[in-house]
């Protein structure tokens, strides 16, 4: 695990706790909350530039030192892993039994705990669902040190509230996730990445044909810099060796395109573009309008923008490193325009990661509905607002 956090968004934690067991973590949390310390939960520090800058941090709790355990029930296609395990370690272990967690490694060496806390969206989501859909059970320690569990090790389970959903994407503001139960899939017999260049003026029919195709791809990604009027479309088809070529042919027929094929992913596939990254959600069929709108914004402000859209999901990541070099006012204007565009297409735009100055000057999450209810949830779990205060939506 990495060395402890020196600073987070310019603030220096006064102390660091490195619990080596769940029991120690419980004690740490109990004591810290008892004395009203401001806390920050950290794993492998891979997403320290995500979210709003926390208001202040008294104690950084390093969860990366918790024991790494993997319990793989291969015949049930389920795994239990502790939160400190990294996604890469987990995948390595699972692959020995021909299985995998269908989640992309978008950020190298991040822990499962960090993955749950931030819920990044990758290409495989199209075929297998997001982290929220694969997380079937979770163990967590509340800020008062109480150990709790929801869900379990069986996929089908409707007993009690699904707290795993609540913790997913909560940026460590509700509880410290200590273990996860995940639904697995078998490694496919064959994988083919089909790639072709698509003019942005032709996106409409391509999106319609792809989303309404019966070929059942595992992922459909569109990628490229927005400066040009052509983007790269890459489709992942996975399955039985016999079926894959037939499906490829079917897709080519449906699209009237012919693909270049490869068994390995394009280099941009499993990553988030840029170091200042925006996440824009939109209605699936509105992709052509989104791309056109973004193209115009990038052109107007003369900013280099790298786009990566998961077609069929409606999640678009934008790498706009130039945002960090603009004046805050200009950056604010760009973000405002992108937000307006996203809202018009039914979605929203958030700053996923960016230098601290940007995330301080403007709310990375923007205005969101049901905020009052979210505050009430936070108040129940963390009445003193000790966990990463200010880091999440609306200053939660």
């Amino acid at each position: 695990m990495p060395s402890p956090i020196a600073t987070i968004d310019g603030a220096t934690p006064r102390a660091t706790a490195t619990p080596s067991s769940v029991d120690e973590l419980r004690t740490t949390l109990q004591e810290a909350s008892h004395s009203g310390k401001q806390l920050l939960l950290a794993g492998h520090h891979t997403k320290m530039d995500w979210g709003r800058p926390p208001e202040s941090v008294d104690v950084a709790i390093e969860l990366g030192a918790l024991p790494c355990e993997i319990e793989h029930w291969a015949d049930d296609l389920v795994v239990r892993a502790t939160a400190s395990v990294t996604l890469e370690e987990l995948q390595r272990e699972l692959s020995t039994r021909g299985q995998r967690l269908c989640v992309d490694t978008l950020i190298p060496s991040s822990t499962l705990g960090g993955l749950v806390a931030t819920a990044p969206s990758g290409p495989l989501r199209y075929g297998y669902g997001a982290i929220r859909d694969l997380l079937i059970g979770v163990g967590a320690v509340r800020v008062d040190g109480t150990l709790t569990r929801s869900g379990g090790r069986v996929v089908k389970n409707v007993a009690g509230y699904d707290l795993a959903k609540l913790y997913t994407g909560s940026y460590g503001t509700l509880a410290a996730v200590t273990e996860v139960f995940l639904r697995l899939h078998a490694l496919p017999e064959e994988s083919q990445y089909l790639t072709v260049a698509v003019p942005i003026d032709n996106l409409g029919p391509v999106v319609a044909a792809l989303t309404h195709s019966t070929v059942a791809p595992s992922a459909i990604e569109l990628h490229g810099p927005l400066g040009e009027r052509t983007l790269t479309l890459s489709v992942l088809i996975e399955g039985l060796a016999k079926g894959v070529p037939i499906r490829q042919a079917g897709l080519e027929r449906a699209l009237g395109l012919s693909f270049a094929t490869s068994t390995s992913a394009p280099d941009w596939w499993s990553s988030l573009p840029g170091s200042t990254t925006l996440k824009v959600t939109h209605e699936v069929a509105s992709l052509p309008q989104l791309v056109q709108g973004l193209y115009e914004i990038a052109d107007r402000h003369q900013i280099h923008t790298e786009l990566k859209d998961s077609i069929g999901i409606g999640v678009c990541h934008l790498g706009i490193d130039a945002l960090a070099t603009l004046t805050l006012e200009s950056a604010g204007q760009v973000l405002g325009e992108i937000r307006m565009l996203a809202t018009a297409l039914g979605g929203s735009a958030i700053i996923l990661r960016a230098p601290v100055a940007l995330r301080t000057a403007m709310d990375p999450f923007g205005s969101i509905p049901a905020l009052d209810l979210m505050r009430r949830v936070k108040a129940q779990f963390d009445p003193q607002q000790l966990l990463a205060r200010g880091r999440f939506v609306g200053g939660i």
Partner: protein
Amino acid sequence: MNNLASLLERLRLIFHEGTGLLTDPAMLRTFECDGLAHHRVIPAVVVLPTTAEQVEQTISICHDLGVPFVARGNGTGLSAGALPVAEGVVISLSRFRRIIEIDAPNMRAVVEPGVINLDLTKASVGDDLYYAPDPSSQQVCSIGGNVAENSGGAHCLKYGFTTHHITGLEVVTPDGELISLGAGKCVDAPGYDLLGAFIGSEGTLGVATKITTKLLKRPELVKTLIAAFDSTTSAGAAVSAIIASGILPAAVEMMDALAIEAAENAVHCGYPEGANTVLIVELDGPEGEVLAGMERVEAFCRECGAGELRIAADDEERALIWKGRKSAFAAIGTLSPDFIVQDGVIPRTSLPQVLAEIAELSRTSGIRVANVFHAGDGNLHPLVLFDERIAGDLETANAVSGAIIDLCIKYGGSITGEHGVGADKVSYMGKMFTEADLDTMQMVRCAFDVDNLSNPGKIFPTPRLCGEVPGRHHGVHPLVLSGEAELF
């Protein structure tokens, strides 16, 4: 003026007596139970709203007066999740049922909560789309009810449950506020995943008034195989082999001898004669994938000792196979005057041990148990047969049924896979979860429903007193007010 009188007085401003507002005792009685008819409570009032405003106003009134309310769809639930509260209001959503929009390009539909599950699929047929979750009661159950229970169905092995197919909700919270959860037709609304917490909360966090669902493209090909085995163990081995090979069937269903007999009696489904166990495996998807997959499934079944094995030649034959499976519950009536439908989950690989233990329970108690299950995901539906006219039979059956749930917990499974906890399984929650687990879940409830008015008495054995929570904020965050933080 007492509470009921003022409640009625205010409800009369919103609803017409006799049509949208029911107070006649005989009428109220028709709402006393849902699909689990032995739990019965007559409510004080029933309202039948047709708009979100009416739901909002009703809940506001309940909130003001401290009157509990219970939302109800078409009353088909099997856990007494819509069991009324005697002094409370039942909000029946069965006439709040328009399909507002089928948005084919975006693969979404927007519906009101009373829309029947199958009707959504019927309305999407023209666009070659469908709504994936298919509980056995899909021809009658409402999507609002599915949201409350996070319903599954035979095909959730591959396609997941209701929670995987809902992207947005408009709900009225227990304090009478109309809000939206989730991201409408998009995904990933920023903030806590309250949508995920709401789905499956069994009506305890509020009432959904508008639901945005995903629609899926119909698969290119569907193939259904039925195979006979001489034991549930060998059939179970076939399931393991199929799943271990990486094939993900749309559905894998297993029925034992007693269940087969019942289905044959009722619908003459033509299952392999003399089979001790039948396995139904359905593959769907692209043609190339399904055909290649089916060859392997067939081979695995043969390797594991399948006797007669058939692949449905056409839709008619396929429908007959499913008719036998889907009618199994009701068909048990041909074998026994009374029965309990149980719903529990075990890790799939524990199937042989658990079935052996169930057989032992049956043998020692003298109570027959028929087994029907979603074998792909370990969801058991044991049918415990008894005769109420025989003294003590009901008690023994209840004991056997309870012991089966204990087995599910012992093997690391769940007390319910799709029917929900409702009022029926409240007492098992403490066996599956610790006090702390339940307390944590109820913190969510307290965030939504401080006064415990929304479907009280369900899920949790004892209500948590929410009380005044320190640091609780309403309205604008103080940091924003003070200018220390800003909303862009």
